[in-house]
């Protein structure tokens, strides 16, 4: 067997890396230009992924602060109740005190629509035949903590406090809509309003609330005043503001705190799991950006393929020589593949760095918190290398399929 005497050619991995490295560095200018496409593609991918994540996180943070801390407790509906007939409530009058003791509750307060028998509300007892001076306005009873729980702010005056509540004082806070209709804009003169024949002193006018906008058009009075004047039986619902992240827990605890005998009588509304919202927003933004980054990367790959092909055609002589000194087709293909993959890898590394810088820069100008999945900058160079490898397939096949005779004859 004559074949046994022939030892196969070998091109070790270390030699391959060295030859590919030198091949790249032989033409630094061209290598830089070739790599540029991949740099742009990877930078686009990394920065869009990061910015989508950052922006998505930002949207979610704003959303969180408002909604993710709101918990509402109501009575569970028990069949159909006639208007005017008060349904039995399982919320105690001291709901505010019970809830504020829970760790994670920032503020809590009861809120109940008061049945005033549809009495109209007026501000001054003047009979003006031309203008309307009496209005149908909702009256709500609220415990003092409600204002903090719903994030209410005042235009003028003050909120009533526990003292007003205990003394059953006839005081009222007007929502801005109600104040405008009743023509009350200042409270320093202690203006009075009349619900039917009942007189109430306005102590404050709301500016805005973060929750429960229904109160913006209402008259708000203390719980005990409502019990005394309008025979309010029990609070209808409780608004709770929690620490960020505590809403889910408080949702479970509040029903037990308010109705220890049978928590199931109460219905607790908590915000949706913030994570679900976050992922939804992030994925919407991502898709578009990813497509753009992918297109950029494709352009980069075509750039590498092009230049590698040109390089193969230029180095025909070198290929012929290498074949003459014992390189197999596989060795030639490996060398050109390694060069294009190395260019992709370098492009990926630079691109990932630029992408991260872009994310940080944009975040800095927008005062956002830059957010980036750790796998993105780690995977980016690999994606670049894979791009280079794929781009090098055709040129290296061309190089490998050259006949050594032709390569030696045509190349110099």
């Amino acid at each position, binding site marked *: 067997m004559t074949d046994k005497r022939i*030892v196969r050619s*070998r*091109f070790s991995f270390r030699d391959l890396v060295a030859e590919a490295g030198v091949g790249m560095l032989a033409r630094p200018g061209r290598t830089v230009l070739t790599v540029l496409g991949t740099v742009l593609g990877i930078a686009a991918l990394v920065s869009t992924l990061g910015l989508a994540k950052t922006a998505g996180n930002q949207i979610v943070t704003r959303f969180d602060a408002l909604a993710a801390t709101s918990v509402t407790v109501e009575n569970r509906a028990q069949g159909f109740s006639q208007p005017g007939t008060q349904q039995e409530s399982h919320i105690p009058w001291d709901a505010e005190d019970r809830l504020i003791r829970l760790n994670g509750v920032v503020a809590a307060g009861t809120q109940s629509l008061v049945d005033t028998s549809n009495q109209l509300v007026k501000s001054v007892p003047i009979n003006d035949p031309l203008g309307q001076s009496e209005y149908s306005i909702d009256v709500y009873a609220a415990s003092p903590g409600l204002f903090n729980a719903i994030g209410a702010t005042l235009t003028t005056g003050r909120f009533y406090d526990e003292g007003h509540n205990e003394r059953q004082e006839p005081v009222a806070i007007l929502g801005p809509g109600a104040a405008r209709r009743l023509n009350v804009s200042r409270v320093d003169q202690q203006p009075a309003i009349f619900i039917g024949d009942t007189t109430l002193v306005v102590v404050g006018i709301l500016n805005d609330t973060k929750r429960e906008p229904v109160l913006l058009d209402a008259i708000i009075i203390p719980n005990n005043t409502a019990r005394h004047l309008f025979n309010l039986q029990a609070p209808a619902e409780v608004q709770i503001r929690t620490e960020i992240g505590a809403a889910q827990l408080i949702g479970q605890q509040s029903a037990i705190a308010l109705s220890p005998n049978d928590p199931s009588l109460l219905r607790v509304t908590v915000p949706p799991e913030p994570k679900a919202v976050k992922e939804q927003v992030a994925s919407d933004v991502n898709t578009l950006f990813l497509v753009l980054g992918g297109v950029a990367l494709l352009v980069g790959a075509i750039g590498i393929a092009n230049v590698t092909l040109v390089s193969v055609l230029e180095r025909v002589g*070198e290929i012929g020589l290498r074949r003459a*000194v014992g390189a197999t087709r596989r060795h030639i293909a490996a060398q050109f593949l390694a060069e294009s993959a190395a260019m992709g890898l370098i492009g990926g590394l630079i691109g990932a760095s630029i992408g991260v810088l872009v994310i940080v820069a944009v975040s800095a100008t927008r005062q956002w918190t830059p957010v980036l999945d750790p796998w993105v900058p780690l995977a980016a160079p690999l994606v670049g290398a894979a791009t280079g490898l794929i781009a090098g397939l055709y040129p290296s096949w061309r190089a490998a399929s050259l006949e050594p005779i032709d390569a030696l004859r045509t190349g110099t």
Partner: protein
Amino acid sequence: MTQPRAVQSVPVVELEAVSRTYPGFPPVKAVRSTDLVVNEGDYVSVVGPSGSGKSTLLHLLGCLDRPTDGTYRLRGIDVGKLPDGKRTALRGREIGFVFQSFHLLSHRTVLDNVVTGMLYNRTPRRQRIPQATEALERVGLGHRMGFTPMKLSGGERQRVAVARAVAPGPSLLLCDEPTGNLDTATTDSLLDLFDELRADGLTLIVITHNEAVSLRADRRISIIDGVLAEVDT
């Protein structure tokens, strides 16, 4: 060397009725039924005009091409039956090439160029630099190792190519018009180098159309229209 050299009695090159025909209308018989034996230490020149089949003979001898008929044994190994990969390996170990156009890598140093000749044929990595250095000193270019070929004269470039060819220790040095790009003075100097290599026991085949070059060889073979004939000296 991990592989023991073949026994002395085996000729380096053995052609038996070798011919090479290129398909076409009509088929071109570039080399006609040829017998040739080149023994170890021979210095053979093949001389012939353009189109006489010199290049085809070179490709056949260099294992770059296969004969269409006949048997070519290189150190006793039948080359015609080998698959491409083994033929390539054999070429890388047994044959050193010197081309008319040098085929040096212009961006690499002289030393790197010589090392390239040992990249694929299993020369251990730590032996490459010493062997390359030795070969360069042998051709008189020990002081040019860090240069790139672009800074060398034509004669020096061809010496680098010779160093690259002899550094791995081949059985056969195959030279294709080695002086084709050189002036008379450098040609003489290169031929002196060939004489020295010959004196060291290397087997040389020099293919040329230059009579003066072919006269320096021990054996002269002429090739005309694909037919080889020994020329008496």
